[in-house]
């Protein structure tokens, strides 16, 4: 049986807002196609070779956790860049997404360095951007819940994940949501993201399989429950 490897980066530190649901969904949707998935938890200070992972996931966290993670991430910067160049699939949400940009400038103007996978910068803001969000993307309509005060600005030429239909996205100017570089995705969407957006989950699985030279066509599933949940969320404030 084919087995994919998912590295869950910082499961203890970056774990609020249900982001773990993304891991549950990737594993289940692989299993339903007869593909196994091994989950490797990678914590602060652990050694890990990212080239052994097909998918790397990391979620949002509390501010204090984000500081611990920022230091650890610096040590892994070269490894992660190499994995991105090699086509490894990354999904980073909220706090980790911010640190995958070049830097995060906090309220007191101190700078938390990021690793620059995305050509983007995040600046602390006073507006809490919170609520259900709807995004139009290459992979269809995406629905989630955002909750952040950091405002992320992408450089000219950095690809967005999609455009904002409802909610804020990267910043209060509604200049788009998330970022995509090669197979690395960054987003503010909690909710969790993938349960209500199965097309994006399958896109990630397909890219992971293709990178291994395997057949990336996935047999289609009955996603009516996923569609109902997405529709219910899209209507809520």
């Amino acid at each position, binding site marked *: 049986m084919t087995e994919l490897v998912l590295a869950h980066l910082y*499961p*203890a530190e970056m*774990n*609020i*807002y*249900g*982001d*773990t*649901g993304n891991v*549950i*969904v990737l594993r*289940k949707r692989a299993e339903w196609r007869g593909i196994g998935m091994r989950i490797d*938890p990678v*914590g602060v200070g652990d050694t890990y070779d990212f080239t052994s992972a097909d998918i790397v996931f990391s979620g949002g966290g*509390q*501010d*204090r956790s984000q500081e611990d993670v920022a230091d650890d991430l610096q040590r892994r910067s070269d490894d992660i860049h190499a994995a991105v160049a090699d086509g490894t699939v990354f999904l980073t949400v909220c706090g980790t997404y911010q640190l995958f940009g070049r830097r995060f400038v906090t309220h007191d103007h101190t700078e938390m360095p990021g690793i620059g996978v995305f050509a983007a910068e995040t600046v602390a803001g006073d507006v809490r951007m*919170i*609520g*259900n969000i709807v995004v139009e993307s290459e992979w269809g309509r995406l629905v989630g*819940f955002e*909750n952040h005060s950091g405002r992320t600005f992408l450089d000219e030429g950095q690809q967005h994940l999609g455009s904002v239909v409802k909610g804020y996205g990267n910043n209060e100017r509604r200049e788009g949501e998330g970022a995509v570089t090669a197979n690395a995705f960054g987003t503010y969407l*909690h*909710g*969790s993201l993938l*349960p*209500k957006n199965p097309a994006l989950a399958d896109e990630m699985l397909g890219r992971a399989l293709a990178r291994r030279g395997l057949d990336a066509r996935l047999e289609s599933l009955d996603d009516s*429950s*996923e569609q*109902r*949940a997405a*529709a*219910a*969320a899209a209507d*809520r*404030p």
Partner: protein
Amino acid sequence: MFRLLFAMFLGRSAGRLSRLFGRGGSAIPGLIAEKIDPRVIEKLASTIGQGVVVVTGTNGKTTTTKMLVRVLESAGHSVVTNPTGSNLARGVATTLMETASWRGRVVADLAVFEIDEAAVRKVGPRLSPRLLVVTNLARDQLDRFGELATTAGHIRVAVEVSETVVLNADDPMVTALGDGRDPGSVRLFAAVGEIRAGMPSDSNLYADGRGRVDSPAADVLLERVVSTGDGQEITLRLPAGERLDVTLQVPGAYNGYNAAAAALAALILDVEPGAIPAALESMPPAFGRGQVVEFSGKRVKILLVKNPAGFNQVIRLLAGADPGPVLVAINDLDADGRDVSWLWDARVEDLDQSGHAFGTSGIRAADMALRLKYAGIDSWSDTDLKAALDRAVAAAGPGATVHIVPTYTAMMRLLEILNPGRSAREVWT
């Protein structure tokens, strides 16, 4: 003195007027009185001869408060306590005023106040607690508190002004509140490893046991929990090594923790150990906390959920219950928390062998159905709560219990539908 009496007079009059116009509003007298005399809480609290106990934390503070009050009353104390839900400054002020004589003295020898964990920073110092009890710290409705560390900081302010603190030794963030204090003023309750393993604190909710530390030696240890249908039998080991066997009417190992906290607080307040079991046993479950309500000839039990830690407690209880219909009703109004992401943080997978028949309801019924699907569990859905309740109840065999797991506003709606009668109408938040 005159200012206090005048504040009390106006506050009480406003309270009577508000009741006259049909607005319950237990906050109004306190709100008015505090405008006239901002020190109304300090002044009245200082007249309580044997001091004030404050109970705070995310989950279990209401139950712990009720348990402690029962134990203290059974030991002959006259106790003043705030009604469920009135756990902010104005609720405390109202309670103190309503129990004060016209000469401005509270007619009770002890007070036990449940205080909201965000309000305790301000209210705690005004009460100069003799004892502060912290049950646990968990992420509550995700859009209500940004940071758990911030909440711990709020509680720390109250810790610093309290003579003695009673802390949950199995919750690392709560235990840390005792750091730097004179060890004699920090007393701990905990459970044995076997019970603790099924009760993840928020700090290790997702870490799969990584980073779990052994609890420090506890003064009161929850040694045994055996479910008995609607309630449970527990054993508490006391500081002297003595053991108390208690039969609780309230279900769930988490209520064993609450009983341990209440027992430890009572011992510190010089209650004889022998008086504790009977008092704890006398406490009935409230609506939303395991009380059984009769509906269409069936037994219906309601278990409120507010956050992933609380949901995990209910999941553990359901996993051990006899198979029957379970209805999970998730709303996303302000009082529930608008973000339902937390459903993915609960260990719903633990229910896949439970044999229950699941239905989902509420505004976000579809989200719950999806969570169940990815846990390998089939369910039916009906967003209309009344229709869903009827369907779940109709599916129950004779003598079976229908479990309903609602968020807060769904529970309020159930209260209307089930109409359990006045005595049960006390709603827990």
